[in-house]
C-alpha cells in the first residue's frame, strides 16, 4: 500500500501493465518525452522507450485508428486522448469501428483498445477542457466505460481495462487528479468492471454519482446526516457494464433516488439510471427521481462554479427528495 494521488495511481497502473506485458504500449499527444500534459505517463518514456511510449502527431483519428490496427494485430495499445473534449476527431473510429469490430466480424476480430482521457470541469478549463460527454459512449453498444473516483480504483480499474478483451473508455476525473489521495495496493490488484461501490450506507435516500462528483456527493451526505437524513452514496464507477443490481437494490431500501453528474442533463447518463429505476424499481419508489447535473448549456468558463453540481446543490435536491410525500 502506498499513498498516491489519483493521477499517480493511473501512472502506476500504466507502469505495472507495461512491465507485465511487452505487448502493452501507450500512444498519444505529448505522452512521451513530456510525460503527458497531466503527467499521467511520467517516467514511462524513460523506462520503456519510444517504441512503447509513442508521441504521435496531432491527430486523434490517427491515434485511435492506428491503435485499432495494433489491437487487431495482437498488441494491447493504450491510447491517451489529451482531453475528452478533443476525442471527436476520433469519434468515427470509436463508434463505427472500435465498438463494432468484434460484432461485425462475427467474433473473428476482437478489438481491445483502452482509451484513457481526462474529463470534467472544475479546473477553469472552459468549454473545451471541461466537458463530460460519457453518455455518447455509453449509448454505443460494444464499448465499456469506466470512471474511477479514488486512486485505488484508478489503478485497479485501469489494470482490469488493460486485461479486458473489449474496448474500454477510461475516463479520468481531472479535477481530482491531485486533490484526492488514498492508499493504493502494490502489484496487479484489479477492480472488476460491473460492480458499483457503496461509499456510504444509508436508508432514506440513494445518491448515485461517479468520478469527480463522488466527493461532493459524500459531502452532501454528511450534511444530510446532520439534518437526520440517512443518505446512501453509490459510486457507479463502471458505467458500462452498469451494476444494475446494486442500483436497484439501493432504491429498494431507500425508496428515493438522486442521480448526480456533471454532464448536461438532457439525455445524460442520469436519464438511464432514472429510466432503469422507473422500470425495474417502480414499486419501491416513494418520490420523484431527482437529477442534479450540469445545465443544458455548453460548459461556461467564468461561471463554471455556478454551472457544476456541488455539495450544496446535491444536498438541496436530496433533502427535497427525502422529504417529498
Amino acid at each position: 500500500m502506498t499513498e498516491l494521488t489519483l493521477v499517480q495511481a493511473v501512472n502506476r497502473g500504466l507502469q505495472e501493465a507495461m512491465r507485465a506485458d511487452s505487448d502493452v504500449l501507450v500512444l498519444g499527444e505529448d505522452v512521451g518525452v513530456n510525460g503527458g500534459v497531466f503527467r499521467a505517463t511520467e517516467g514511462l518514456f524513460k523506462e520503456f522507450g519510444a517504441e512503447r511510449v509513442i508521441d504521435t502527431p496531432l491527430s486523434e483519428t490517427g491515434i485511435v485508428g492506428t491503435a485499432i490496427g495494433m489491437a487487431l494485430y495482437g498488441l494491447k495499445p493504450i491510447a491517451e486522448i489529451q482531453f475528452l473534449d478533443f476525442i471527436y476527431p476520433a469519434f468515427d473510429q470509436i463508434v463505427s469501428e472500435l465498438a463494432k469490430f468484434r460484432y461485425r466480424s462475427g467474433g473473428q476480430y476482437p478489438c481491445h483498445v483502452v482509451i484513457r482521457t481526462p474529463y470534467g470541469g472544475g479546473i477553469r478549463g472552459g468549454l473545451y477542457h471541461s466537458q463530460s460527454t460519457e453518455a455518447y459512449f455509453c449509448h454505443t453498444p460494444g464499448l465499456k466505460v469506466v470512471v474511477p473516483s479514488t486512486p485505488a480504483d484508478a489503478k485497479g480499474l485501469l489494470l482490469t481495462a488493460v486485461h479486458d478483451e473489449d474496448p474500454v473508455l477510461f475516463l479520468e476525473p481531472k479535477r481530482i487528479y491531485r486533490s484526492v489521495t488514498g492508499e493504493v495496493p502494490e502489484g496487479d490488484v484489479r477492480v472488476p468492471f460491473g460492480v458499483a461501490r457503496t461509499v456510504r450506507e444509508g436508508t432514506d435516500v440513494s445518491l448515485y454519482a461517479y468520478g469527480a462528483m463522488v466527493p461532493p456527493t459524500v459531502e452532501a451526505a454528511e450534511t444530510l446526516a446532520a439534518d437526520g437524513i440517512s443518505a446512501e452514496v453509490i459510486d457507479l464507477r463502471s458505467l458500462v457494464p452498469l451494476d444494475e443490481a446494486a442500483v436497484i437494490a439501493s432504491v429498494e431500501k431507500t425508496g428515493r433516488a438522486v442521480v448526480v453528474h456533471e454532464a448536461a442533463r438532457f439525455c445524460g447518463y442520469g436519464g438511464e439510471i432514472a429510466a432503469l429505476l422507473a422500470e425495474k424499481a417502480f414499486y419501491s419508489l416513494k418520490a420523484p427521481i431527482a437529477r442534479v447535473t450540469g445545465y443544458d448549456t455548453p460548459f461556461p468558463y467564468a461561471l463554471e462554479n455556478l454551472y457544476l453540481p456541488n455539495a450544496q446543490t446535491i444536498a438541496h435536491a436530496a433533502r427535497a427528495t427525502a422529504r417529498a410525500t
Partner: protein
Amino acid sequence: MYRYIARTVNEDALMAKSTAPKSSPTAEGASEGSLTPERRVAAYRLMVLARLTDERCLVLQRQGRIGFYVPLQGQEAAQVGAGLALEPGDWAFPAYRELGVALTIGVPLGSILDQLFANSGDVTKGRQMPNHFGFRSHNFVVASSPIGTQITQAVGAAMAAQRRGDAIVSIAFFGDGATSSNDFHAALNFAGVFKAPTIFFCQNNGWAISLPRAKQTQSPTLAEKALAYGFPGEVVDGNDLTAVYRAVRAARARALSGEGPTMIEAQVYRFGPHSTSDDPRRYRADAELEAAKQKDPVVRLQKELMAEHLLDETADRAIWEAAKAEVAAALTAAEKTAPVDPHSFLDDVFASPTPRLVDERVRFEELLRDGVVKP
C-alpha cells in the same frame, strides 16, 4: 527563405527522379518484378472467376436472392495483381469492392457467397451487408462501410508488425473518393512519420458514386499526395496486371527494407454502377464507359496471353467454362446453406455478455416463445 512552389502544373518534375522504367509487358528479369507465365495464366483464371462471379451476383440481386451487391468489373487486374503480390502473413485491409483480392489470396468462393447470402456459413454471421467481407483465416480484415477508416487501421497493424519484428506488410485498399477522407490524411501522415510498412493501394476507378475524379481534388494525380507525407507515390495502369503486380512488389520490398510506405494509384474504371442501389446513367456519359471498356483488363490479359501463346481459344473456353461451373456449384451450395441462427444477433457484442445483454436475451427468448416476434 522566400520560395514559391509550383510543382503542381509541372508534370515533368513529377517524373524527374523516376526510379522505374516505363512499363512494358515484356520488361521482365528482376525476380521481384516478374510473374511467371504460369502465374499469369493463373491470374487470368482468377480474373475470369471474379468477372463471372460479379455478373452472376448482379443478377442474383436483381432477382432478390441477395440484398445488395457492389460490382468490381473493370478492376480485376488491379485486384488480382495486388493480391498476387502479397505473401502469406501480410494483412489486407479492404473496402467493400475487394472481392477479387479475397479470391486471389485464397478465400474460397463459397465463403464469399455465404457472406453475400448472410447465411449460417457466413463467418461474419450475417451481421453486415453483402460485400463487407472479413476472413481472419486469410488476414483479410473485415471491411466496414465508412469510407477511409481501414486505411489508418492498416498503418496501426503495420506498426504492430514492425514492433513485433514480423517481416510482413499491411496493405490498405481504397478508392479515389477515399483520398478526401480524414483517415487518408491521418493514415499517410502516421505512416510517413513512423515509417510503417504499409502499402496504400488506391483503385482510382474514376468515380466516388456520382462524383468524378476531377471534382474530388485538384491535385493532378492522387499518387502525388504521398509526397505531402514524405514518401513516394506511384501511378500505375490498373488494367495492366503485370504493372500492378510489379508496383506492389516494389512497395512491399521497400516496406520490408524499413524505408517506409508507398502509395500506389491504380488507374482503372468502374464499369458498373457504384452498387446495385445506383443508376450511373444519371450522371455519366455512355461514351466514357464505352471508351473505358476498350481497355477491359480481362480482355487485355486474354489478348496478351494469346499473343504470347500462353493461351489458345480452346484453353480459354475451358477457363471460362470451369469458372462458370465453379460459380454455379458454389451458388447452389450457398443457397442450400441454412439461414443464420435467429438468436445470433445478440452475440459478440462483448467477449462475454454483460448482465444487460443477458437480460435482453431473456426478454428476446420470451418474445420468441410467446410468438410476439417471429424468426
